[in-house]
């Protein structure tokens, strides 16, 4: 798909030269045009000068860290899609992630092919609603009769609170923010649990079952969470800012 149009321009920001060098040529080979920056200040300059289509941003960097870069951009109403290289497993990180509004997160060390998959997914999602505040920045999101309050970590259905475990809420949040995308169990594990042990995929199934039970979603005729056989799960309802 990328070949027929002009390639998407990615700004890669990391203070580690070895990562920049290897990832830049890998991403170029995957069909993207790459610019690089070695610290946060340089990243902001580059964003202003080059208006890239997407940023891949490390968190711990000299001069200005990745989180500050996201904050500054969002404060200027700059909604350039951002993939932040960190994990959002714990509640404090989750709260920060909400405040920042990055589009996706990837934990180092990652599989470079996974990075390409996420870049494509984020670009596709954003292409459908360009220049709008992304869902990732919304405090409350709605899908049909379900409302998720991301700050309070509460879920309501037809105005009534739904009782869920903290991890089920986190899983629902990730599904909602990545609606219409097929998410493998491995990816959900990495994003929501921050783990990858062999049988852990069962943990994902157990939480999906919990969500379906609590939200009254029939796996055979899903309104919300669809099982994609051999691949994973997909949130099928339309999600909007509430």
């Amino acid at each position, binding site marked *: 798909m990328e070949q027929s149009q002009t390639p998407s321009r990615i700004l890669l920001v990391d203070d*580690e030269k*070895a*990562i920049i*060098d*290897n*990832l830049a*040529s*890998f991403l170029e*080979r995957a069909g993207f045009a790459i610019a690089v920056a070695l610290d946060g200040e340089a990243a902001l300059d580059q964003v202003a000068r080059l208006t890239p289509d997407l940023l891949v941003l490390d*968190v*711990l960097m000299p001069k200005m*860290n990745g*989180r*500050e870069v996201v904050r500054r951009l969002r404060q200027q109403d700059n909604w350039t899609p951002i993939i932040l290289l960190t994990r959002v*497993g*714990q*509640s*404090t*990180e989750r709260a*920060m992630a909400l405040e920042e509004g990055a589009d996706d997160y990837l934990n*180092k*060390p*990652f*599989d*470079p*092919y996974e990075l390409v998959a996420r870049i494509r997914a984020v670009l596709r999602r954003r292409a459908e609603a360009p220049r709008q505040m992304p869902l990732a920045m919304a405090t409350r999101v709605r899908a049909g009769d379900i409302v998720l309050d991301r700050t309070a970590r509460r879920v309501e259905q037809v105005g009534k609170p739904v009782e869920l*475990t*903290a*991890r089920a809420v986190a899983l629902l949040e990730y599904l909602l923010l990545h609606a219409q995308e097929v998410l493998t169990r491995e990816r959900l594990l990495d994003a929501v*649990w*921050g*783990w*990858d*042990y*062999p*049988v*852990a995929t*069962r*943990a994902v199934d*157990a939480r999906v079952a919990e969500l379906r039970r609590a939200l009254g979603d029939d796996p055979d005729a899903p309104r919300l969470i669809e099982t994609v056989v051999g691949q994973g799960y997909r949130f099928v309802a339309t999600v909007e800012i509430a």
Partner: protein
Amino acid sequence: MRRGQWLRRWRLGVSLIPLSLGVAAALLWQAGLFPNPVLTLRLRADVGTLLLVLGTMLTLLGLPAAVVAVTAARRRDRDLEAAHSACTDDRRCFLQRLDHELKNPLTALRAGLANLASLPGGRERDAVHTSIEAQVLRVNRLVSDLRKLVELEQRPAERVPVDIGELLAEATQLAHDVPGREATLNLPQAPWPLPPVLGDRDLLALACYNLLENACKFTRPGDAIEVRAFEDGQSVVIEVADTGPGIPTEDLPHVFDELYRGENARTIEGSGLGLALVRAVARHHNGAVSIRSRTGHGTAVTMRLPLA
């Protein structure tokens, strides 16, 4: 961190100096104690009041600057805290730093290997590539296990009713995938079935899985693996026993330590963190693990989880 806080206070303090000098001067003037008679002669206005006004103005100018600086510093600290979470003890700090130092080179290595794979090459080069990749993934697994261990001690565990029998059944199923291993599961029905344990399902599943994985790894084809669980009034007790080669007595006290490898375990692949994770999960649930073993006979690992 501590130095940062001190600096911040110091900055606030400095911005208050002009005000305090002004107040002091005003008081001295009022009391007629101002030490400089020349000033007294030259100035008609109330010098003390003048100084007070001057001091107040400087403070008003200085305070916002200090507040802005403090806010920025707080935000910076919060980011750092998130990056390093609470480093409350040396061991955890060490593990966290190790994870941090390894993840960048590993990220670069994996991207480099992916580049290499797309370059033209012969069968020999492919073989080298495959071998290096396997080793990189092995280090990758070690890093991810270390991270699990650190996070596990920090994350607040969920407390929902968990059916241990179901978790053991899932884990036992795994043993059947290992050639030559037959694991039997024995769950009580009398006097009543196993009661649920209040805890974190994902963590408990991880512990059960690790126990079974260990039993499979340290046994030979044909050895028996028995999984059982019962309730003794205070706890749910889980036991995974095998007829494997056993663990030498001198190794036994250390098998739950991170990265410890006994004499017999050196040749067996693994991160050396399996039992350390089990112990961390047990402690997280206010439980405990213990091990009994006899060389030439077998091993039994017992995990106790308190009843609600």
